[in-house]
């Protein structure tokens, strides 16, 4: 099923492991080069920046080729001609993609992702144009099939996510008559998906999908939470059954078992964190931490406990103290946890992204020449007095 040479993928895993061991000084330089010689890797996976460059440029080539096709063919423009162009373009892009993977041995090079996206979206667009008025369920299923194919064939992260979301979308469309039970269907399906992915990750046969499946686990956990989050659920009902926002007052009292959603909103992230820490599962811990923020937002949306700035200050203080406490506590590793870096080379720090990031997030920290009016300047005392 997978498009890549399995032997090559295994070799790649082996060399990556060996490089990791070498960075931790567990094996010698000589052993590393022996391993590299014994497990040659021909796959083309350039560094992150080149990947971004290849992605952008491949998109440019694709889009202008598409434009060129349209320019030549659109003499008698009709929907079916346009659909035909789309299908032709989708097939062409897919053909190039297979060629890149088979002949040039591209593996997550950026170019393959761009071709995947273009091929997939052109295919779906073409079918929609030719098929006329398709019902939402049909569209959902078609997207699901297309994305699943790309996911299985190229082990692509984004396509895996798209397939997951398409599945949930299709289910919502099919089961909309269930109404108040729908959130629990989403929760159940997400949980089943998570459980399935968790099992499959350990299977030898699916070893090439390991990293991708971890990303999909994270999304399954997020959709599971979304299914029980009060804000998401009530907004969904407002939009879906009552035709627009502003039906807040109608929906809220009608939500049966409103208490259940409150409990789910608040408890789920902590359940994630509990199991994450108990089982030392990184995905659970990270998703759990992100969702703690979701609790705060949800609670603040319905009950304005404190003004924003107080919440920010207190929250910031709590976070600093929490991190400080945990780092102090883990100074000597306890129960198998450490606050020290693991092998994170190749991630953010190695790319020196930090210095770029900080300048972006703090740009308002640096006052411009004319920014002394304190955003309103209604301050008493001097203030921005005079001509300013």
């Amino acid at each position, binding site marked *: 099923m997978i498009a890549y040479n399995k032997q090559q993928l295994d070799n*790649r*895993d*082996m*060399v990556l*492991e060996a*490089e990791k061991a070498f960075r*931790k000084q*567990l*094996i*010698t330089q000589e052993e590393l080069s022996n*391993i590299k010689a014994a497990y040659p*890797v021909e796959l083309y996976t*350039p*560094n992150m*920046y*080149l990947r971004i*460059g290849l992605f952008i440029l491949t998109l*440019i*080539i694709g889009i*202008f080729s598409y434009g*060129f096709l349209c*320019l030549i063919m659109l003499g008698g423009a009709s929907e079916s001609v346009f659909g035909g162009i789309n299908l032709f373009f989708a097939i062409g892009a897919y053909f190039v993609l297979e060629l890149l993977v088979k002949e040039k041995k591209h593996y997550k090079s950026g170019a393959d992702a761009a071709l995947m996206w273009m091929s997939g979206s052109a295919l779906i667009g073409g079918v929609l144009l030719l098929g006329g008025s398709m019902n939402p369920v049909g569209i959902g299923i078609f997207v699901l099939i297309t994305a699943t194919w790309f996911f299985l064939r190229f082990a692509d992260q984004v396509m895996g996510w798209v397939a997951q979301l398409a599945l949930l979308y299709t289910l919502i469309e099919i089961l909309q008559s269930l109404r108040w039970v729908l959130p629990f269907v989403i929760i159940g399906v997400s949980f089943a998906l998570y459980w399935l992915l968790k099992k499959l990750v350990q299977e030898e046969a699916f070893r090439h999908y390991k990293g991708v499946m971890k990303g999909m686990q994270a999304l399954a956990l997020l959709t599971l939470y979304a299914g029980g989050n009060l804000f998401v659920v009530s907004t969904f009902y407002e939009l879906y059954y009552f035709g627009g926002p502003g039906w807040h007052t109608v929906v809220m009292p009608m939500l049966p078992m409103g208490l259940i959603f409150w409990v789910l909103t608040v408890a789920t992230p902590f359940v994630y964190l509990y199991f994450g820490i108990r089982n030392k599962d990184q995905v659970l*811990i*990270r998703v759990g*931490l992100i969702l703690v923020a979701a609790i705060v937002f949800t609670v603040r949306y319905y009950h304005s406990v404190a003004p924003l*700035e107080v919440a*920010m*200050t207190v929250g*910031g203080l709590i*976070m*600093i103290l*929490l991190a*400080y406490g*945990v780092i102090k506590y883990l100074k000597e590793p306890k129960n*198998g*946890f*450490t606050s*020290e*870096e693991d092998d*994170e080379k*190749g991630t953010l720090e190695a790319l*020196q992204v930090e*210095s*770029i990031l*900080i*300048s*972006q997030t*703090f*740009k308002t*920290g*640096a*006052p411009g*020449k004319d920014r*002394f009016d304190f955003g*309103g300047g209604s*301050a*008493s*005392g*001097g203030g*921005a007095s005079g001509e300013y």
Partner: protein
Amino acid sequence: MNIRMFGKLEQDGLISPGSMSNIRAASEKKLFSLHWELKTILYLGVLLLSGGLGILVVKNIDTIGHQVVLLAIALACIGCFYYCFRKKLPFLWGKVPAPNPFFDYILLLGCLLFITFITYLQGAYGVFKFHYGTATFIPLIVLFFSAYYFDHLGVLSLAITNLAAWLGVNVSPLTFIEGTMYINMHLIITGLLLGGALLVVDYFTHYLRKKPHFGFTYRNFGMHLMLLACVAAMFKSGFNSYEEDASYLIWFVIQIGISYYIYREALKHHSFYFLLMMALYGYVGLSYVVVRLLFLTDSIGGVYAGILYFIASAIGLIIFLVNSNKKIKHDSLQ
């Protein structure tokens, strides 16, 4: 660490039994790292706290009184700097590691509080009267001093941003994309000169071997400023002018010169990031020139030629980037 994988390697005689026992020992006492999570919480905490305090101060300025606020900010700021002075490792012109995981964040918080303090002083009392330059110049000195003295890359970026603000340029690329930046010739020239100065500083950082690891940050800001200035000048030459204005060609030539310098630097420092950025700015510049020239033809053939140009040039750029990457050559698979 996959023990079974290494077991196979040992069987094949690719790693020695000694290394194998190393790996076994390492995987037995393998610890679960919370490093990334804790750092993120700490960073967000610093952001939220300084942001929240800022808003708090602005909103309650009437009720709590200036002295109290100023005193509180000053005390917190002094506390942060006191901690940094006490904990820091001896100064070196090379890279100095942080003494503990909090050091960097406390320094960052201290610097942000200092900026708030000075801004507040000016806003509430007008201490610097109309010498707005002075009000930004003092934090500038403190930031550069902190960056060098405590060896902090984030504070250095903050300092450079502040320097640009002092000169009247908002460097952040986002403001450019959002179109909120008012572009005039004065701004473009300032950006070009500041960028050039930063590149010179980068050169001397390496040449004199004074904090050479700061070079990346200087070069990064310098490159973006200069190339952005060129591209902005080219795009500007098209606006508001009905008669043909050929000044964009001059800017394009300047851009080629700068790009060549950055290309050489990128190869020297084995940095693909700079190569890619240079190439993308160059691509935008070249495409602008080609499209402007094709407009002169004023025919449908121009549209076809334009589309073919984009396809061919993107292919050409891919070939250039892939070959340059081979030149820079990373041995690792990542």
